[in-house]
């Protein structure tokens, strides 16, 4: 048991580090990290992100785990982790390619036609075009397969109508991957089909969603008679759910890898700066007990991540422990923010940058963290997943599974 790189890993890390040193500026570790949910991106950010991705691609650091034929490096997951670990020590543009590289690219590799692979994978890897995912709908959140957007065949095209929601980056994406219902008479999971969608098509309207913290990382996307050529279909007609599952499996990997454990040191500092009963709050035993609990949880998450990395490093499949990151981490983040706000007393109920401790950072966190517990799988869905996929407990009783989709109840019976 040791934390050290193997010889190959160390060599790879050194190489990555050297390249990063030559091409990027290191992060100051004492600088406070910003809001966990990024604000709406602007054009400059997009330009710099594209430039950085192209630079990485040209130097051989993009999509490390992808096969070389698709623009990747044919590397291991561990190599990708090592590069990302090193990269995180440098100032780089926000990660706008995560969904494309982590989820959509692998879906095209598994289910796409040769033409689709040729046309899209290399430009995706180099970041020339940005991709977004169009799955969720207002009436299909946790119950994703309940989606109601439709596509009807018309000659060589399909005509799409409906609405998607929670589409990160739709407003700056050239391409989207979308699941729609092509047969409402089939059972819920059987009537879906998966397409690549040109986001510049006629009939698409994109509206940002304002979040409770004022940010707008997500969009609503409306489709009115949008035409998609059949050549953009991924997988067979009616096989969309199976294709979508490939995307979602890769989402779990992408999200699990990024379990954030930062923030505790800042909280500790806050407890030193805040007062309780006229003394530094950190001297208060109740605060100490709570901080200790949080530290232990956070350490647990950190070393759980290490266990996953160890399995990857040894070429094994990671164990079920990887599932807990978001289920534990998201509520913990909300708890930390709530504690930090409460420690400031009545002034905690303001966001005044000058008056609050840490310039209102924690109030912003407190407004942002409810979203973390919902986006990418609610607490409840994650616990279902742990219970059913990890512990193999029986699934929920499902009444909607085998009936024609058009008969599945979608609201209370009318009176």
């Amino acid at each position, binding site marked *: 048991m040791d934390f050290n790189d193997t010889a190959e890993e160390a060599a790879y890390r050194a190489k990555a580090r050297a390249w990063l040193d030559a091409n990027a500026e290191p992060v100051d570790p004492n600088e406070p990290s910003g809001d966990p949910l990024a604000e709406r991106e602007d054009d400059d950010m997009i330009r710099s992100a594209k430039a950085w991705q192209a630079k990485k691609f040209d130097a051989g650091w993009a999509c490390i785990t992808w096969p070389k034929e698709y623009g990747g490096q044919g590397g291991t997951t561990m190599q990708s982790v090592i590069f990302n670990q090193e990269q995180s020590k440098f100032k780089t543009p926000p990660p706008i390619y995560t969904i494309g590289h982590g989820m959509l690219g692998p879906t095209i590799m598994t289910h796409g036609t040769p033409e689709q692979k040729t046309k899209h994978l290399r430009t995706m890897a180099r970041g020339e075009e940005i991709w977004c995912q169009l799955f*969720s709908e*207002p*009436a299909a*959140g*946790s*119950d994703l397969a*309940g989606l109601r957007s439709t596509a009807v065949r018309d000659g060589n095209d399909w005509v799409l109508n409906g609405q998607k*929601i*929670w589409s990160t980056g739709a407003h700056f994406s050239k391409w989207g991957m979308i699941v729609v219902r092509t047969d409402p008479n089939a059972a819920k999971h059987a009537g879906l089909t998966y397409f690549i969608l040109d986001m510049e098509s006629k009939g698409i309207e994109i509206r940002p*969603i*304002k*979040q*409770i913290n*004022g940010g707008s990382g997500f969009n609503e996307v409306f489709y009115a008679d949008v035409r998609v050529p059949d050549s953009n279909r991924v997988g067979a007609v009616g096989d969309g759910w199976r294709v979508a599952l490939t995307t979602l499996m890769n989402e779990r990997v992408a999200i699990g890898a990024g379990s954030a454990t930062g923030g505790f040191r800042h909280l500790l500092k806050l407890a030193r700066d*805040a*007062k*309780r*009963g*006229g003394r530094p709050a950190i001297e208060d035993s*109740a605060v100490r007990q709570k901080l200790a609990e949080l530290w232990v949880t956070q350490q647990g998450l950190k070393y759980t991540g290490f266990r996953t990395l160890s399995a990857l490093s040894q070429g094994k499949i990671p164990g079920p422990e990887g599932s807990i990151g978001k289920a534990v981490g998201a509520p913990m983040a*909300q708890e930390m923010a709530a504690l930090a*706000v*409460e*420690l*400031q*007393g*009545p*002034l*905690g*109920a*303001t*966001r*005044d*940058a000058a*008056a*609050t*401790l840490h310039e*209102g950072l924690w*109030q912003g966190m*407190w*407004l942002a963290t*409810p*979203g973390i*517990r*919902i*986006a990418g799988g*609610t*607490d*409840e869905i994650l*616990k279902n997943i742990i219970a059913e996929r990890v512990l193999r407990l029986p699934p*929920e009783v*499902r*009444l*909607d599974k085998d*009936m024609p989709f058009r008969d*599945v*109840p*979608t*609201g*209370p019976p009318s009176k």
Partner: protein
Amino acid sequence: MNFDFSDDQKLIQKTARDYLAQHAPLSVCRRVLEGNERYDAALWKGAAEMGWLGAAVPEEYGGSGLGHLELVLIAEEIGRSLAPIPFSSSAALATEALLVAGSEAQKKKLLPRLCSGELIGTLAVAEGTGDFDVATPGTRIEGGRVTGEKLPVSDGDVAGIALVLVRDGSGASLALVDLEAPGVTRTSLESLDPSRSQAKLGFSNVPAEIVGASGKGREIVSKVLDRAAVVMAFEQLGGAQRALDVTRDYALGRYAFGRPIASFQALKHRFADLFCAIELARSNAFYGAWALSHGNDELPLAACGARIAATDAFELAAKDMIQIHGGVGYTWEYDCHLFYRRAKLLGLVLGSASEWREKLMTRLEAREAA
């Protein structure tokens, strides 16, 4: 035994509820939250006309002469509607301070104006981050003039008077300050719930008069806080119950997997937990109201119970409200965040639940020792 409100009192509550349903739908709270108003002036006027601001003020001082049991029920309705008015600052904190400690002249002069809504009052105690209740205020009074800084002060940017805890010789006194006077600076602070205003007040040699016995400021503030805590507990309770009701309706109407999400056991149990928390808070609040209206020795403990339980219940309700709503609950467009913000604001403006739990233990120990 009759541990309940009378039919007359319930009628007053019903009238308030109907009035607010008409004049303060959630869109009113949202308008203030999103805009530049610091409170809804029309609603404030209406509240005054309905006699709410002086519900517990004797008629001789311009009040409606009802009592605290009526006042708390009105507060519950204000809580339920998330009304964006400085009710708790003016009708609970400032008004109660004058009732508890004001001289006859002070009461005669100010209470009628507070009851009519013409004047907004508040209480200024905290000085920066930390507890609400500062042991030794940095703000001083010397030769009848106040100098120092108070923050946050609820509704301090819209109030006309503030009762300010000041250092006075070796002790602390409560000073009445006209916020229109020269030497007062008022700075709005960005509130976590912008439908309820917060401010920083600066005083530079501002004339003031003492309210109550000189040197007894902390004792007076403690009494005023207990009274305001009970009133606010009902406001919190109203908010919590509304959050539960709205969320229940949503969960019954929202279908996933062919069933209402309210039929999933994990959510059902969370609803049950929330119901328990709210009912426990209600019982504690009832007890607080009883102690407040009877003006007896139980109030110091009962107020702690009311505040702690109500704070926990409203915060839980608002947090669950977002989570059970799912994605839409995290959007600006839905009303969940109005509750989430209000719950946090009310839970902190009189001092955090932790501060009150500590106060409770001190009082419990003192009683056990007696």
